[in-house]
């Protein structure tokens, strides 16, 4: 930065300062591995922009003798590698933020590590950046990691990229080498949505083309890195987008004032504008806007304001106030890209906290559609996600939230996932744009769709059909199984022969015809319950093969599990829990299965349980093992 004349008058300094106030801010990210000279480049920018104060330099010279790697030169990288442990290892492992300024702009640099195992750190740095500087070592050219960095930058919504081809001094300042790397990168980057892409040959160590061109590359006519950073236009048309305002805090100092405080996440708002509370659909108009500099007629994206509305409508922290004419989506499911940031893998179905805007809700991943290899961009199926893996997935939330696709709005389209036990931030997500329309189409179908209900319950519904003689132990086993499923958070219901006969089937007796009708009705009821998304346990003697086959046909393949509770009739007769065998033998009950009505044992039940000599716990564990093996729980 140009310093004011040390003899300048107060008035001149005041004017100089105030002229500086109007400069804007650029947040950018640098990525590349330590060997590419990333820290050296940032150190060079800081050094050359003369914001490295004298005693920081003095301290630096002391440190260089202990940790330095470039002999007698000042090791510029030491300016930016912050933590003790990192300096000892000689690598940057976290995100560090650095600051420098010129007369035109203030820069905030997120310095992030380049290795694959630090994908989460790069994503973190990229989330608040508008531009990415990708470093390449001119000797090595494009590496796998360069592609990875371009991909992550693109995924995080960065539209401006600088390809900094560093260490050009080590390839003899070769124009040919530069052109070759640039061409290769341009061809590769076509698939990404970069608005600007500028390649610059430079030497961070000696300073060529960092802040000044130097004499070594007369063939290069483009801007220096600093010139480009000072002038690149990254205005993201935020003002032109629909107005979005996540409410942070309700400002109510007294009964006469009720304002909604928050930061405008997109678009512009003016007094008189019609706005809507997205989730409730209640509308009002803007009465007053309190901005950072007092009451104002309008305010735009990025400003922290307090809005007062003309009507007393209900809104609180977590609500999104939006342009009534262009509302955000409100839904409890969306598809998103996820970056997993925890050592503990992501488990679909597990409940996490999801923070989007100012709202925190519980949510779970219902399906990992595929994970994406950050080096090859290949898609692969996945059941879980490990640290630093990226996936495309569906999420279900316990309550609907307002959001936009990330591509349309980086603030209302981004979220983090928090572990409910450790409170750690374990994942980051970006609501995906292209699936949104598909989701909407999907939604209309979802209203009557079994899959949707099942998905919102987070389980696979099925009928477990227990058949066996009276007293064989069906109800005991079904009841214990239901308890165990309940403990696992599964949604269940049990249809029991005796209970159903007291109500729905009160009009039926025990003739063969009535038995058929009994099973038909129970089969239909079980189908409705499965349609509702439940794991439905049916405990009926259901003695005839054909009716059991009829019931089976009501369900899709694999969703009807016949469980044969096989207990010899002698044992049933001995147990006789309800005294029915005794009555039947005495002729007081007619058409009793096994006495004077046949029982047709299943020929190919999914589960065949011989109960003799086994306790119910053991039997239930066997059923659970079957359900697990078949992905039903």
């Amino acid at each position, binding site marked *: 930065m140009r310093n004011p004349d040390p003899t300048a008058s107060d008035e001149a300094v005041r004017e100089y300062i105030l002229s500086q*106030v109007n400069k804007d801010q650029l947040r950018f990210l640098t990525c590349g591995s330590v060997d590419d000279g990333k820290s050296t480049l940032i150190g060079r920018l800081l050094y050359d922009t003369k914001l490295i104060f004298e005693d920081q330099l003095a301290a630096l010279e002391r440190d260089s003798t202990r940790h330095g790697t470039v002999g007698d030169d000042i090791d510029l990288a030491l300016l930016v590698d*912050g933590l003790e442990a990192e300096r000892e290892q000689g690598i940057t492992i976290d995100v560090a933020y650095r600051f420098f300024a010129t007369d035109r702009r203030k820069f905030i640099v997120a310095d992030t590590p380049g290795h694959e195992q630090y994908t989460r*750190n790069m994503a973190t740095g990229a989330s608040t950046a508008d531009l990415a500087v990708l470093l390449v070592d001119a000797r090595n050219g494009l590496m796998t990691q360069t592609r990875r960095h371009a991909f992550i930058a693109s995924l995080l919504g960065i539209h401006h990229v600088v390809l900094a081809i560093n260490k050009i001094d080590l390839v003899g300042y070769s124009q040919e080498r530069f052109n070759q790397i640039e061409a290769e990168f341009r061809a590769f980057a076509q698939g990404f949505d970069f608005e600007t892409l500028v390649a610059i040959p430079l030497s961070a160590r000696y300073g060529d083309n960092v802040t000044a061109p130097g004499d070594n590359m007369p063939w290069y006519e483009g801007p220096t890195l600093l010139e480009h950073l000072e002038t690149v236009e990254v205005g993201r048309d935020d003002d032109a987008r629909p107005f979005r305002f996540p409410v942070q805090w309700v400002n109510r100092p007294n009964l006469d004032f009720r304002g909604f405080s928050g930061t405008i996440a997109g678009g512009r708002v003016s007094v008189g504008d019609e706005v809507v509370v997205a989730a409730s659909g209640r509308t009002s108009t803007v009465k007053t806007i309190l901005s950072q500099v007092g009451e104002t007629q309008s305010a735009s994206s990025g400003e*922290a304001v307090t809005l007062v509305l003309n009507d007393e409508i209900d809104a609180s922290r977590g609500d999104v106030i939006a342009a009534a004419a262009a509302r955000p989506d409100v839904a409890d499911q969306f598809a998103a890209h996820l970056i997993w940031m925890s050592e503990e893998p992501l488990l679909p179905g597990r409940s996490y*906290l999801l923070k989007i805007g100012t709202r925190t809700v519980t949510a779970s991943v219902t399906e990992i559609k595929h994970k994406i290899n950050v080096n090859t961009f290949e898609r692969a199926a996945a059941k879980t996600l490990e640290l630093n893996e990226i996936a495309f997935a569906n999420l279900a939330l316990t309550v609907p939230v307002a959001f936009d696709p990330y591509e349309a709005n980086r603030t209302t389209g981004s979220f983090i996932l928090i572990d409910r036990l450790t409170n750690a931030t374990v994942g980051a997500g970006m609501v995906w744009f292209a699936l949104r329309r598909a989701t909407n189409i999907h939604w209309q179908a979802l209203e009557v769709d079994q899959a949707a209900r099942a998905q919102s319950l987070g389980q696979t519904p099925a009928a477990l059909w227990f058949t066996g003689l009276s007293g064989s132990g069906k109800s005991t086993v079904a009841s214990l199984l239901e308890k165990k499923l309940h403990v696992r958070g599964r949604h269940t219901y049990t249809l029991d022969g005796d209970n159903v006969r007291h109500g729905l089937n009160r009009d039926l007796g025990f003739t063969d015809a009535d038995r058929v009708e009994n099973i038909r009705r129970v089969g239909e009821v079980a189908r409705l319950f499965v349609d509702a998304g439940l794991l439905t346990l049916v405990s009926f003697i259901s003695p005839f093969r054909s009716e059991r086959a009829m019931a089976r046909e009501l369900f899709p393949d694999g969703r009807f599990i016949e469980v044969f509770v096989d207990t010899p009739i002698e044992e049933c007769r001995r147990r006789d829990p309800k005294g029915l065998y005794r009555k039947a033998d005495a002729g007081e009950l007619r058409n009793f299965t096994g006495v004077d009505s046949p029982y047709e044992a299943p020929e190919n039940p999914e589960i065949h349980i011989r109960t003799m000599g086994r306790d119910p716990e053991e039997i239930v564990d066997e059923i659970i093992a079957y359900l697990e093996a078949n992905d039903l729980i």
Partner: protein
Amino acid sequence: MHQEGSNLQEDVMAPGRLDNLRTLEAESIHIIREVAAEFRNPVMLYSIGKDSSVLLHLAMKAFAPSRLPFPLMHVDTTWKFREMIAFRDETAKRIGADLIVHTNEDGIRQGIGPFSHGSSVHTHVMKTEALKQALDKYGFDAAFGGARRDEEKSRAKERVFSFRSKAHAWDPKNQRPELWNLYNGRIAKGESIRAFPLSNWTELDIWQYILLEGIPIVPLYYAKRRPVVRRDGMLIMVDDERMPIGPDDRVEELMVRFRTLGCYPLTGAIESDADTLPAIIREMLIARTSERSGRLIDHDDSASMEKKKREGYF
């Protein structure tokens, strides 16, 4: 109380992209509101320095026209400049804030002080330990601090919401990823968050903002003739009778000011004629000594701040 600057706010809020200071201001207000909304019992650490003045100013803006929804707390080592204490009390009164002043009474009983015990023991007992005591005593689950990432290298990697264990310790290797403006304020009982709304401000931003907004600051920042003694290459102001004056010491009346404020025996003055805000900023722009070098506590080791922070220092 010093207050100068101009109200140029109309000119600087032109439509379109926000300028640097308004961007920083908006981000800070956002952070302050997040803390107020997500925590049960937050507190703002008020150290009386210029960064604290800016932080307080931002907090007032964040909640206007309401009062601050949290108290201010000053950890008083009993060795602060007298003008700081006067400024503190005036400020609390002016803005109508609740002010908690905490001193480590155990330290007082043991007679801990910078002259008798040295800067390291004094800072540990009267600042770090005192702060932990106060946070525990009042059960605060979040505490705002005015630290900036440009101050010092280990701060450059610290999160805006910086998680502290039950023992108030910072673990630089196990920080929560912090993306977008989505701050994770979830904690278990006894744990806490230190929130740093000024993380992305530089010293120059702070001074420009003070000028632009006319924020009052302690008069010690302005040059004035003050009695000082030269000690270990630093100019230490004789602020009260506790300052030991040895036979070789010479008390000089020099035109000096302070770039940072703390305990007077540990805070070096610089010779300066800058007695107005523009003059201070001019001096800063051509500064030959960086900000924290005025504080003795950082001189022990360049990694000393990281060590202190691991132990619970702000």
